């Protein structure tokens, strides 16, 4: 076999006429209704302008016209991939503001649900990212497992994606029988698929070629743009709200904060962001195992502390939690009436997307799709 010839082309000296191209709003690789206005020099991206708002549903305006518990279903619809995680900061913040202390078992159920939903989110993120790069089989494996989690949530709350399961002061329902065993089955299955996917996807030569050294985000750029979650940790900064400011009962569990290490390329590239997601699934499995073991036995009245009528005092607070995608926060202002004056959601994907123009300059247009996929955005949350 003859040797493969490579051609050394200095792209720096060749310039073509600049071309403007619209990616989206209806395009599978934009992961929703997002339009990217891209300026191209040949195949090289020189400028990216994201146009968002196609899915704007006035969440913040709606929230001002509803009572506090009525806001929760709307929060579900923000990041519809990880609805349990979305409800958590709002519910925890409201309980702190109203001085409600819930039963211990409820805290454990919440943590288990949040971590299961984190696994489901990361499975979808890695699966669709693989799909963007042309890997179809891992997508099927991940979706098969995600189905188990979603079926469990359906048994808990009746909904497959939008749960309204966490209530202010409790839960909608108690867990069904064999909840703990079902969780352990899921953990076992997730671990098996992850071990398989590491070989099939993450350490696949083609996948590494597509993702390593692409979309490099240095930690200082990431912090200045305010990104959070696996996108920030992929740049090597171990910032996780579950560890830095533990909420709920996260201080009782032993888990690691995963960071990117630049294993196959440069620190903070697309591959790093995805390996963080893969590793976080394992950490979530660890938390679920510990939570199932520690959870108080027997049934409890999950609606015991749910207030009949919520009329908080005058005040304002910011409540946050570590979502699968990063820090999700709510800034709530109360004027002492039944309805909030202002509910501001610090949407994770909104902030994470804003870094895209900065990190995608100078790459090929095919790499732009990979960079966008590695940010793991959900347009429902960006547009609210």
């Amino acid at each position, binding site marked *: 076999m003859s040797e493969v010839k490579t051609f050394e082309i200095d792209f720096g000296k060749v310039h073509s006429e600049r071309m403007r191209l619209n990616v989206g709003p209806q395009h599978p690789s934009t992961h929703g209704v997002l339009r990217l206005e891209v300026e191209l020099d040949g195949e090289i991206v020189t400028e990216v302008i994201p146009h*968002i*708002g196609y899915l*704007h549903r*006035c969440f*913040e*305006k709606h929230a*001002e016209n509803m009572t506090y518990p009525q806001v929760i279903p709307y929060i579900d619809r923000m990041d519809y991939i990880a609805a349990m995680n979305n409800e958590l900061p709002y519910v925890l913040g409201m309980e*702190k*503001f109203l*001085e409600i202390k819930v039963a211990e078992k409820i805290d454990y159920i919440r943590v288990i649900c949040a971590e299961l939903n984190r696994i489901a989110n990361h499975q979808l993120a890695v699966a669709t990212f693989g799909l963007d790069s042309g890997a179809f089989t891992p997508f099927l494996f991940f979706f098969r497992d995600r189905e188990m989690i979603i079926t469990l949530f359906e048994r808990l709350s009746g909904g497959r994606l939008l749960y309204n399961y966490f209530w202010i002061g409790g839960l909608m329902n108690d867990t069904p029988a064999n909840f703990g065993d079902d969780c352990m089955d899921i953990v076992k299955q997730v671990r098996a698929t992850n071990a398989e996917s590491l070989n099939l996807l993450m350490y696949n030569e083609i996948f590494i070629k597509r993702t390593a050294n692409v979309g490099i985000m240095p930690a200082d750029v990431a*912090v*200045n*743009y*305010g990104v959070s979650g696996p996108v920030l940790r992929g740049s090597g*900064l171990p*910032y996780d709200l579950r560890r*830095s*400011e533990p909420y709920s009962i996260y201080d009782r569990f032993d888990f690691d904060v995963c960071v990117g290490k630049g294993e196959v390329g440069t620190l903070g590239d697309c591959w790093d962001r995805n390996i963080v997601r893969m590793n976080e699934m394992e950490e979530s499995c660890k938390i679920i195992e510990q939570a199932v073991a520690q959870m108080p036995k027997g049934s409890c009245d999950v609606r015991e502390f749910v207030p009949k009528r919520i009329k908080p*005092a*005058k*005040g*304002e*607070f*910011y409540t*946050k939690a570590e979502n699968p995608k990063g*820090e999700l*926060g709510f*800034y709530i*202002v109360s004027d002492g009436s039944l309805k909030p*004056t*202002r509910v*501001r959601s*610090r949407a994770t994907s*909104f*902030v994470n997307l*804003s*870094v895209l123009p*900065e990190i995608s300059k100078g790459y090929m247009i095919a790499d732009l799709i990979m960079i966008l996929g590695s940010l793991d955005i959900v347009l429902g949350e960006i*547009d*609210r």
Partner: protein
Amino acid sequence: MTANKIYEKLKAELGEGIQEFVEMPLSDPFIVVSRDTILEACLVLRDEPEFLFDYMVNLSGVDQKDSFAVVYHLYSIKLNHRVVMKVILTDRESPSVPSVERVWKTANWHERETFDMFGITFDGHPNLIRILTPYDWVGHPLRKDYKTPDFYKGLKVPY
């Protein structure tokens, strides 16, 4: 560092511009900063080694009926502390506040959103255009006196 201490140190450094420290039971305390001092205060908070607020968590507007407030939530990853600052804008007709986009890039999109929703202009912002509503939208939806239009480009708005 607690919010109260940050207030005292800021007050010592910047004087009159740091107006008051508001604490309510169960609420997050916040520092009221005057409109003209906010950019300077942000730079001090980011760069001084005892504050090091390198991470802007959130920037939002609030309609307080007789005035607007722009609220800054800051966090320091290195020192693990938080602070909330507020600028009260009494001019309802044309509220404006200096942009902090050059301090934290997070503010770029957040300020655009606040402009879109409240009509607060951020002086010195490089690209202050609407972000969530269409570019030709009339009005600022999160103002309390906003009236939902009946028609958009000749089409009836269905609710």
